[in-house]
């Protein structure tokens, strides 16, 4: 991709935001001062190292206070230009173009750096001259990719795809990058939070894998608008996009059901713009995916945050397990030694209205009849944007994505056993509120028999759900009995975390960290198992 193209993209993005935010002198002035307020306040709390940002905004502010009404728009343009450059800063299109080949190497080096043992194995294998060694070692053995992969590959050739996975760990983007390579898909453009760069190793790779930068400390509405517009513009230009519609990593452990509509809606926006521009390949396809872990790297931090006085959870977490390479190494080592698989399930692709599409990218109605999706955006026979209508369409899309998330969630032994273990604990302490149960559980325990009883009930129901196609289950959950499933879960839940979630002592199950039990069990909430809850 030539640098000229980048210029064009930025100019277009800035102009679109300006047209929306500064329709007249008055709104331009308001948007400018509002942005300056947010930015200067951010710099008060998080001063930039060189002071260059602060002096930039001081200069603009000083000019703005003296400026004649017509001038505010130009000053706002300068600020937006600055935002756009920052956002686009890490997105190196040359790297994007050649990353198809670079991704697997990069990721394996990354993981091998984290695991000295793997590194040795890689070197040995290389010395022995094994072909495709890069793919066979490291992640490939740990990650299982299933679902509608072939269809997505086809659709990526005939249109632009937007991959929208569930989000529970900062490792997700790395794993998705790897999965894309495994599938033979090009890297996807995505907005990586600045906090991802806190991990020096991962930050390096993320910065060079098609990521643009999202600074969540920037709270100005103009900045958020610019981010969305930027993503939309890359979709129109044909870049496949990746973002997590849940917004941030799920804190509770449950499958996300409240999705952010802003970015999701940019798919429809881009589709309409493509139709208006008469592009040859106007189609945008949305591909939900689930990432399913037996253990989650940051589980302790996430559930802690979730339980902190409801509604006050931190949007930005910079000091979690992910920022500590040693912790990632421990995590990976545990996964390798437990032969634990991470499952990525690719859902059936859909159009920007939430209708399923077939292999040729044609939209289908609920009865499988082929429909012309472009008719959804007609008003009086003319294609166009209708903000109110389009918001409702996006809500429909979000509903379809949320349903796909649930249908394609893969339940593992840690989820099943944690759910049952938490129910057993609640059942034994029927009058104790949730927070007290979580706080003072060091002396709490249930009998193994009780756990098995709750397990059998839950297992039975989950098998029924899987049979009905409402959820997926892994091999252990599908084919093993209660004792084996509990055994596998205990091996996981008792090994990686600072404190084991649950442990077995003789005929008792103890709860050293009940919050983790809640976290892993929450994966099963939202599947209508409420009647099992005591």
């Amino acid at each position: 991709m030539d640098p000229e193209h980048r210029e064009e993209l930025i100019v277009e993005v800035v102009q679109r935001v300006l047209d929306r935010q500064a329709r007249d002198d008055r709104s331009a002035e308001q948007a400018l001062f509002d942005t300056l307020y947010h930015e200067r306040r951010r710099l008060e709390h998080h001063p930039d190292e060189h002071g260059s940002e602060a002096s930039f905004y001081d200069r603009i502010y000083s000019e703005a206070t003296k400026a004649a009404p017509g001038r505010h728009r130009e000053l706002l343009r300068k600020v937006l230009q600055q935002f756009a450059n920052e956002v686009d800063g890490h997105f190196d299109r040359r790297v994007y173009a050649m990353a198809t080949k670079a991704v697997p190497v990069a990721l394996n080096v990354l993981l091998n750096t984290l695991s000295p043992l793997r590194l040795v194995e890689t070197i040995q294998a290389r010395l022995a001259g094994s072909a495709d060694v890069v793919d066979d070692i490291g992640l490939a053995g740990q990650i299982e990719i299933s679902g509608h992969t072939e269809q997505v590959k086809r659709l990526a050739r005939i249109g632009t795809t937007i991959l929208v996975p569930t989000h529970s760990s900062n490792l997700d983007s790395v794993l998705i990058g790897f999965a894309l390579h495994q599938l033979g898909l090009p890297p996807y453009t995505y907005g990586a939070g600045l906090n991802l760069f806190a991990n020096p190793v991962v930050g390096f790779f993320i910065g060079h894998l098609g990521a643009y930068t999202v600074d969540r400390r920037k709270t100005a509405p103009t900045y958020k608008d610019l981010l969305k517009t930027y993503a939309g513009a890359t979709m129109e230009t044909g870049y496949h996009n990746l973002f997590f519609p849940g917004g941030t990593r799920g804190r509770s452990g449950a499958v996300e059901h409240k999705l952010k509509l802003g970015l999701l809606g940019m798919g429809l926006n881009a589709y309409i713009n493509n139709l208006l521009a008469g592009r040859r390949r106007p189609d945008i396809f949305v591909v939900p995916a689930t990432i399913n872990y037996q253990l989650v790297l940051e589980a302790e931090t996430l559930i802690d945050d979730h339980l902190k006085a409801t509604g006050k959870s931190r949007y930005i977490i910079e000091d979690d397990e992910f920022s500590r390479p040693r912790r990632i190494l421990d995590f990976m080592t545990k996964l390798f030694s437990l032969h634990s698989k991470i499952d990525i399930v690719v859902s059936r692709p859909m159009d920007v209205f939430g209708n399923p599409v077939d292999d040729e990218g044609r939209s289908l109605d609920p009865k499988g009849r082929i429909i012309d999706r472009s008719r959804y955006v007609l008003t009086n026979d003319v294609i166009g944007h209708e903000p109110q209508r389009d918001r409702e369409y996006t809500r429909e899309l979000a509903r379809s994505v949320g349903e796909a998330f649930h249908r394609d969630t893969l339940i593992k032994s840690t989820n099943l056993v944690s759910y049952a273990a938490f129910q057993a604990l609640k059942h034994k302490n029927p009058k104790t509120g949730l927070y007290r149960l979580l706080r003072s559980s060091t002396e709490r325990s249930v009998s193994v028999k009780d756990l098995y009883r709750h397990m059998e009930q839950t297992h039975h129901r989950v098998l029924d759900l899987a049979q009905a196609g409402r959820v997926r289950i892994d091999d252990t959950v599908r084919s093993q009995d209660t004792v084996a499933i509990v055994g596998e879960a205990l091996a996981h839940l008792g090994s990686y975390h600072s404190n084991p979630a649950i442990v077995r002592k003789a005929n008792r199950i103890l709860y050293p960290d009940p919050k983790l039990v809640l976290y892993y069990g929450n994966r099963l909430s939202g599947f209508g198992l409420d009647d099992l809850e005591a």
Partner: protein
Amino acid sequence: MMIDHDKSQPRHQYGKTGGADRGYDRDLTVVGGGSFGTALASLAAGNDKKVIMWVRRPEQAAEISEQHTNERYLPGHDLPGDLQATSDMERAVRASRTVIVAIPSKSFRAVTSMLGEYLTGDQVVVHSTKGLELNTHRRMSEILTEETCAKKIGALSGPNLAKEIMGGDPAGCLVASRFAEVRHSLQVIYGGSRFRLYSGHDVVGTEIAGAFKNIVALACGAAHGMGFGQNTVSLLITRGLSEMTRFGLTMGANVFTFGGLAGVGDLVATCTSPLSRNHKVGVRLGKGEPLAEILDSMTQVAEGVPTVAAVQQFAKQRHLNLPIVNGVHALVHEAMKPNDVMRLLMSIPVGQELAVLPHG
């Protein structure tokens, strides 16, 4: 003429104008030739709109188009001269951007499935059916979503006794949809007529209110049939509204909907008017006539009869206590004697009257 429909191709290929060649030549299509469907079509036609109706039987289509009557459902009423009807679903659906579906809940899915063959994404679909699907407990808008590609969907509900509308009495109704375009389309069609359309967003509440009021109408009819006066009817209406609201809230409805035209408005009309079909069935039940005999003698559907079964099933699953629903169910489907039902209802322990309302 039958159009050969190649299933492997989209029904319309987009071009720059999105296949705008479709050229709708009517303002409104009404699917269903029952009394309310015919009344809605006539009102629009009388309001200078071009309207086509779809009816199942070709003879009925011919009667409406040529003799301008619908004797079976609206005996004694003349229909507007330019109101056309057809039994060809494709022709009817392709004629207008706006489609109203007025089909009894029992056959709603089958008919909308046919509709789904021809609908396209730009069309607005509003239904006026006041019922829930038995066994699935689906609302009609959910069935439309499951059977067709339509997304711009709405529900029309309110106090609208077809015969009064045909008689030219002023009336009002609620059109609820999340899409502004849907609300606007209907208001344009009926704007300036004697049929005022108010608009709202709460599709769930509107549909629940419409379905539920028929159950209360059966109860009020039975009370009348048993010779009770207005005190009893008022008691049933008020407590019926409370049950309706409680039921609606568990389905995600907005509490305010039940205080409006589609809620209390429709409830008052249906429960007090001798024109209401459900009320009529209730009166006969109250006099001790068996249900089968009553239904055999009717040409039209009393939606409350299947709806009470659907609502009772659903309420049971959700552990909701709805005494009037249970009473009407016992009367209609369990052959309990009217006096026994009334005794049962009156023996329920009293509680707080406004306990249903959410308070801050």
